[in-house]
């Protein structure tokens, strides 16, 4: 199974990967056009720098980061769509930009923003083309189409032109198309963008099940942390093209697992004395995790919740109060904050090569 230089351990590797794009500034107006013609000003954008990442077979990696952090660029490099400017990216032990058909046959890519299927064809026809492209056995093909459409609840949409499907139905078809050839590694770039809660949930369950049953390795990017929480065991956080965090989601959420985030809304005209509040709630083992003009977020052990909530009503002019189960959002915000402060990556908080 292991072809060429594939090391047993890693299906996916990035060593010091960087990518810069050169663009030419376009000035507005007629004079601007003339100026551009005479002397073009080029701008180099560093989309990624110094990314080190190794992923083992069967790992599920959630890739998160703000808009423009470089997630899509990393996916493009790892899948060989664009070459890295510096460093080395490898898939199945082979340079990503020079994948051969045998490696490509084990890879799949789902892009939330762009269709992998043929726009003018009904999904079933696209699937048949994919069957040809990936040389899928007919029995496997029929079984998977039946099984996957059932799991994602789109059995009755197979013969409708792709362009006529709803966003959610189309996305499900894209995902089915990606899994038809039983790939070993699947990249999903925002597969749940714009989908409703039910569709998201169905897709998450699909991914979890395939990861479990078939040992598929996948890398998922999403702005919805719940997607990541439910499907991935490991998270990688990008911030401004650098790696801000790479580690176990379980370990990370262990720190916050039994915790609850309480968001307290107060009267904006009575200012909160944060240091006093911190002192008072310390008795309950709680800390202030964030605040805005009219709200403050407090994090506490779930067990102490019944004591703390009444106390908060005494300490603050509470207008409204909500309790969040799992403050991963807070944690990620904390990661961003730390990477900003240190100005460099805190990757390596994950021991080299530790597996999940």
């Amino acid at each position, binding site marked *: 199974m292991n072809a060429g230089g594939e090391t047993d351990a890693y299906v996916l590797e990035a060593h010091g990967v960087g990518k810069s794009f050169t663009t030419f500034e376009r000035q507005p107006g007629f004079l601007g056009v003339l100026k551009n013609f005479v002397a073009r000003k080029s701008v180099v954008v560093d989309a990624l720098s110094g990314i080190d990442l190794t992923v083992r077979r069967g790992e599920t990696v959630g890739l998160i980061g703000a808009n423009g952090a470089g997630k899509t660029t990393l996916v493009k490099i790892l899948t*060989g769509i664009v070459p890295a400017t510096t460093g080395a990216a490898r898939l199945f032990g082979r340079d990503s930009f020079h994948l051969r058909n045998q490696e490509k046959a084990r890879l799949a890519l789902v892009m939330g923003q762009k269709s992998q299927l043929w726009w003018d064809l009904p999904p079933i026809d696209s699937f048949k083309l994919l069957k040809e*492209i990936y040389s899928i056995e007919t029995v496997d093909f029929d079984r998977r189409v039946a099984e996957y459409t059932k799991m994602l609840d789109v059995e009755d949409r197979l013969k409708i032109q792709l362009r006529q499907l709803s966003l959610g139905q189309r996305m499900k078809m894209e995902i089915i198309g990606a899994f038809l050839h039983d790939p070993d590694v699947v990249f999903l770039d925002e597969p749940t963008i714009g989908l409703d809660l039910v569709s998201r949930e169905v897709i998450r369950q699909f991914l979890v099940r395939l990861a479990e049953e078939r040992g598929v390795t996948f890398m998922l990017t999403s702005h919805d942390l719940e997607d990541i929480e439910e499907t991935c065991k490991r998270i990688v956080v990008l911030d401004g093209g650098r790696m801000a965090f790479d580690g176990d989601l379980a370990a990370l959420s262990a720190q916050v697992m039994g915790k609850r985030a309480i968001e307290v809304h107060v009267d904006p005209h009575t200012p909160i004395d944060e240091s006093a509040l911190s002192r008072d709630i310390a008795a309950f083992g709680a800390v202030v995790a964030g605040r805005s003009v009219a709200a403050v977020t407090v994090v506490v052990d779930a067990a102490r919740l019944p004591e703390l909530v009444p106390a908060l009503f005494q300490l603050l002019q509470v207008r409204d109060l909500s309790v969040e189960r799992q403050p991963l959002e807070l944690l990620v915000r904390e990661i961003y904050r730390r990477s900003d402060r240190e100005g460099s990556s805190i990757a390596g908080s994950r021991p080299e090569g530790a597996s999940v």
Partner: protein
Amino acid sequence: MTRAEAKVSSWESDARTDLALLVKTVGYEFRKRIQFRTGFFVREVLNGMVQPLVMLFVFAAIYRSASASGDAADATLGSWQYSEIVRYVAGLLIVMKLVFNARGLDLSAEIFEGRITKYLTMPFRYFVLIQGRFVQFTIMQVVVATLVWCLAYALMGDRWLVPVSWLATGQALTLVLLGSYCCFLLTVILNTLAFWLDVVWSLLVMAWFVISFVGGAIMPVSQMPVWASSAFSWLFPYWMISAPIEILMGRLGTDAFLRGLAIVTVQLVLLDALRRFTWRRGLAHYVGAGM
């Protein structure tokens, strides 16, 4: 299995996939073309009819003014009698239907809008899909050209271009189709410039004009000044348009066919190498926009 054997078997399975895919693509392209009947008629049947009609009109005027008696039929220009010119234009009408033209390919848009991204991660050569369009085009146009020829022959009989022999027909068709493939490769190469430029369409229009002229779609190459006709006879467009018609008319024979075959084959190989080169360089430049 040794490494070499593995290589061969993987090559074999690649080739098999390519072929199966080619057949599928051709089918898909056919469906796309025939979907709209009026569009089909305008594009595939009427297309290429107007230019020859205009040419006939112009040639008639030129021959008339060159003739002492004022009758076009009496004049001879550069070894071409008027009746021959008429048959040349008839041949042109058929041949130009078979020649691949840039409209059949929107590769540059696919590159520009990032639509090729999805194919880059799939285990096959993207070029096979493009070749599928060429094959589909060629099959369809051979059928259409045959029908048009039969119809014209039924209406006009011997005044229409009748090939001198089956051998000549085979030779002419071989040259036209090989030339057409060269034309296709050139179109692909110009389209791949979309990795760097956004003016591909104007380049294609210019290239098409040059090919028509050099190939003899405006006037027979052998009617041009000697320096031009001898220079152009080294280029594939001549062997794709002017020469095959002259072979059909019996003005050129087997020795010319063989020379043409050699020239076109060499240029086809060169163009294919250039296509590989630009494609590879282009991909290194690709940013996969819109993802």
